[in-house]
């Protein structure tokens, strides 16, 4: 039953696309993304889409182009046919991985979930109109289909690279579909992210700004993104500073989380042994170590007190992804990294900034191949 495929943008005949000779950073594709970026930055789009536009701004694309310039030993080439399955919790994510696949010269089929958000609709409408003007999407397709359909199987057979974003459960279910030996696979499963903060008296003037950043990191996608901080590990920080920090965070989060979600989340963490220490627009629950990492809680942040780096790393779960950090020097970050599975550090307020190196993986590299001459 491969019927009921919805095509949102691009071209429908992906299973028949013939081989092309487009190379990474082809000027036509760069120009398409530049145009996309300019429209998204025109002020008529949501914050999320504006952020996408910002990320794809020309200066950024040109910088990558320089970074991946060919030399006399190696030439960059596309992987070929890429199949991306995007997650439903972070609805804009697909656009980032798609843009990189596109930029690297690939033919790309992106699967998004069937229920489109307003942002997704707006983006697809824009992509369609740019496609009409430039035919830039003749070898790209954005589709939805019922997960029981056999199309995942067909596309798995078709692609040379399968990239899966989503929950462990959905990745495991897609992995039931065999991938031909010649195809590669990259997966971006469930991850957990924390914040490690080290504040001193000298940082007091910076607290409002740090708090604003933290508030942004948690309110974006309602804490449901992998990179959203869910627990704060206070590293050698005085409790009065912590209280100041939470008050400042609270002021930035008026109405950010529904009361019932905050209640459910905080009661859950309390039931597991946490103690409520701050009760406001966000609830803060203290415990001696991270609790409830397997639930998707909203409007609650846990905290624990750490006197040394070893107590921090001892708590980090295996699927730790981002550490949004303040007050850690390079040596401290290296120490955390080598004793845990930490995959990236972020600055306060920038935990959800997508980077082409994500989850420890350089996406531009995996979406291309380096051909030795």
């Amino acid at each position, binding site marked *: 039953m491969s019927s009921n495929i919805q095509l949102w943008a691009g071209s429908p005949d992906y299973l028949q696309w013939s081989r092309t000779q487009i190379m990474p950073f082809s000027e036509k594709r760069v120009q398409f993304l530049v145009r996309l*970026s300019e429209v998204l*930055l025109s*002020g008529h789009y949501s*914050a999320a889409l*504006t*952020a996408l*536009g*910002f990320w794809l*701004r*020309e*200066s*950024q694309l*040109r*910088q990558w182009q320089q970074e991946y310039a060919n030399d006399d030993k190696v030439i960059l080439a596309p992987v070929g046919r890429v199949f991306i399955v995007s997650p439903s919790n972070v609805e804009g994510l697909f656009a980032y991985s798609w843009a990189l696949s596109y930029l690297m010269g690939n033919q790309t089929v992106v699967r998004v979930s069937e229920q489109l958000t307003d942002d997704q609709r707006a983006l697809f409408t824009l992509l369609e109109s740019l496609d009409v003007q430039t035919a830039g999407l003749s070898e790209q397709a954005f589709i939805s289909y019922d997960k029981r359909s056999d199309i995942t199987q067909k596309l798995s057979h078709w692609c040379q690279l399968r990239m899966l974003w989503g929950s462990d459960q959905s990745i495991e279910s897609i992995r039931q579909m065999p991938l031909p030996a010649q195809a590669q696979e990259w997966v971006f499963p469930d991850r957990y992210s924390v914040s490690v903060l080290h504040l001193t008296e000298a940082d007091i003037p910076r607290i409002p700004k740090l708090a604003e950043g933290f508030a*942004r990191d948690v309110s974006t996608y309602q804490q449901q993104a992998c990179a959203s901080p869910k627990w704060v590990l206070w590293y050698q920080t005085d409790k009065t500073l912590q209280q100041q920090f939470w008050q400042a965070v609270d002021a930035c989060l008026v109405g950010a989380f529904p009361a019932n979600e905050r209640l459910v989340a905080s009661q859950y963490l309390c039931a597991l042994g946490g103690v409520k220490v701050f009760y406001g627009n966000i609830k803060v629950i203290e415990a001696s170590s991270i609790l409830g990492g397997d639930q998707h809680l909203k409007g609650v942040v846990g905290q624990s007190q750490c006197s040394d780096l070893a107590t921090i790393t001892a708590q980090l779960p295996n699927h730790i992804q981002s550490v949004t950090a303040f007050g850690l020097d390079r040596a401290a970050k290296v120490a955390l990294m080598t004793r845990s599975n930490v995959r990236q550090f972020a*600055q306060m*307020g*920038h935990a959800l*900034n997508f980077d082409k190196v994500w989850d420890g993986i350089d996406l531009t590299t995996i979406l291309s191949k380096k051909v030795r001459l």
Partner: protein
Amino acid sequence: MTNNERLVATFATSLNIEASQVVDALEYNTIPQWDSVAHMVLVAALEKEFDVMLDMDDIIEMSSVKIAKDILAKHDVVF
């Protein structure tokens, strides 16, 4: 146009404010028009206008018109 005029014009267009409001003391998040979303529009426009590429630290630090000038000065834009 002098660099200063170009800067003022870019700020005014990106933030959708009067050119007269674009003074050194104008700070990020002190007027509703200069919020974090507009900041992205502004940075992209400044980069385009002056043909520079700002790094993440610069983008975060760029919290006033004065600081924007200082940062652009690092990229050899003279005011």
